[in-house]
């Protein structure tokens, strides 16, 4: 242990310096540039551009669909994590590996295949469309794409918690006469809650910024099925840079706020675990 003070590892200045310069050039300065461009706008101009009727409709769809998709992922993600950790069945390992598929698949491919599945002549659409469930080229399509994109988050945050869960506690509750449902609601669910919330927040944050998968399936009609990132692209195509910047800053500020919330949730979840 004495030796440690004599042999400090080399390279601290070099690696930290390189890390900071690289990060500044690629990430931080360009972001600062966006906020600098905001100075060209007066507060009133910014507010007007960021809250046009069309932009408000786009925010409503983006946040509404992201919320529904994240809630679906919280429910089904908990179920999938539970089934993968607790039960043995054929194909379990394969499914476990496939859970990360939405992370690995390019979003354009996800959008393309989902829109073809839910279109009126698609494998799912041919059964769902006659029932009145139109998954392609509607706001529902946005929810479908965002559910796919966010699927791994809750499963992957919950799995380690479930694996470390002390089953003795459940057994004690059962021995004391608690029903299985009561044990789940009063003992298991509260322990899982921080991890589920973290996964939910991660899926929600990812969904808000998502673009590639959504534009293939949404139909992209203004005021109806147009998400906020797409509106930025449309403003750019119209050479309305101020309009694009205003919406981008709204999204960026919300992303930063969510990042702070996620950091707090992760700290809470890890404190809860110990």
């Amino acid at each position: 242990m004495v030796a440690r003070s004599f042999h400090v590892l080399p390279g601290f200045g070099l690696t930290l310096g390189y890390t900071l310069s690289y990060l500044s050039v690629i990430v931080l300065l360009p972001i600062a540039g966006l906020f600098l461009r905001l100075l060209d706008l007066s507060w009133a101009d910014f507010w007007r551009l960021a809250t046009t009727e069309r932009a408000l409709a786009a925010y409503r769809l983006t946040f509404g669909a992201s919320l529904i998709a994240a809630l679906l992922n919280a429910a089904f993600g908990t179920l999938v994590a539970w089934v993968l950790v607790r039960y043995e069945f054929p194909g379990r390992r394969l499914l476990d590996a496939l859970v990360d598929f939405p992370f690995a698949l390019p979003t354009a491919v996800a959008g393309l295949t989902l829109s073809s599945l839910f279109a009126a002549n698609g494998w799912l659409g041919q059964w769902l469309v006659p029932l009145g469930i139109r998954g392609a080229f509607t706001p529902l399509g946005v929810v479908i794409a965002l559910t796919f994109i966010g699927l791994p988050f809750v499963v992957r945050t919950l799995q380690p918690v479930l694996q470390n869960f002390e089953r003795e506690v459940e057994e004690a509750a059962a021995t004391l006469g608690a029903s299985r449902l009561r044990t789940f609601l009063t003992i298991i669910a509260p322990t899982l809650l921080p991890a589920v919330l973290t996964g939910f927040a991660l899926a929600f944050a990812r969904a808000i910024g998502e673009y590639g998968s959504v534009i293939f399936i949404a139909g992209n009609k203004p005021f109806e099925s147009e998400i906020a990132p797409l509106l930025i692209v449309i403003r750019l195509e119209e050479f309305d840079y101020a309009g694009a910047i205003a919406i981008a800053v709204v999204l960026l500020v919300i992303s930063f706020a969510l990042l702070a919330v996620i950091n707090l949730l992760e700290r809470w979840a890890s404190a809860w675990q110990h």
Partner: protein
Amino acid sequence: MAGVTPSRLGTRPSPARGAAESGPARWLLISLALLFLGTFLLLPLVNVFYQALHKGWDTYLRALAQPDTLSAVKLTLLVAAITVPLNTAFGLAAAWAIAKFEFRGKALLITLIDLPFSISPIVAGLIYLLLFGLQGPLGRWLDDHDIRIVFAVPGIVLATLFVTVPFVARELIPVMQTTGTEQEQAALTLGASGWRTFWQVTLPSVKWGLLYGIILCNARAMGEFGAVSVLSGHISGQTETMPLRVEKLYHEYNATGAFAVASLLAVLALLTLALKTFLEWKQQRAYALAERAQPGAPAS
């Protein structure tokens, strides 16, 4: 196959009565989970290959052999070949500084490295467009000197670089923290140079984590759509990557062509998953061996 498999009997005793779901409840939960994963994972995956191949191999191969599609494949490979090594070098440097040393602001630095993950790809693209586009001072200067970044390959590379910054660093940091600094200190005490210690001691001990980060970084670099789309200019045969080619063909109502390119990207995703699963297994084994070698070492 209900019940506990023999290999698990030693470590995980069969739960007491009442501490597990009844048979029917268990099968209901498994069926629901399978239904969800089947709809949202398996069907989309199988559909890509079905749509690409259902008109036969000849049509499929002809769709892929289009000059614009081939040039999209080439550009995608080129972009990955530039961005992945750059972000790997960054990841190694960042992980070395963060895992081996104590300094103030470390938590903030880790948050900053993860920042691109929480920014919409469209916003990432916009940021670079504003920086290098013609409406900005830098863009006009570049234009005067005939340097093209926006709507050209350099812009695509920069956008990809931005969205893939965190991948290698965030996989390497925990791995390097787990391996500690004792081995490097031993090597230095024995007279090895800093570089030699890095190449022969550090790198071998983190190689699985490093590879893991590299394949995830590569998958995202080849698959990025939004950020690249803002900066590409969408010129077929010149500034179209494979994901952008998928979109162009889709808009031209060439579904078979779009799915043919998409199938290549889906194969990339499957390869990534297979390698990832293999590397996770390797890494767990490396951890287990390290823990057996030094029982006091911190667990993962």
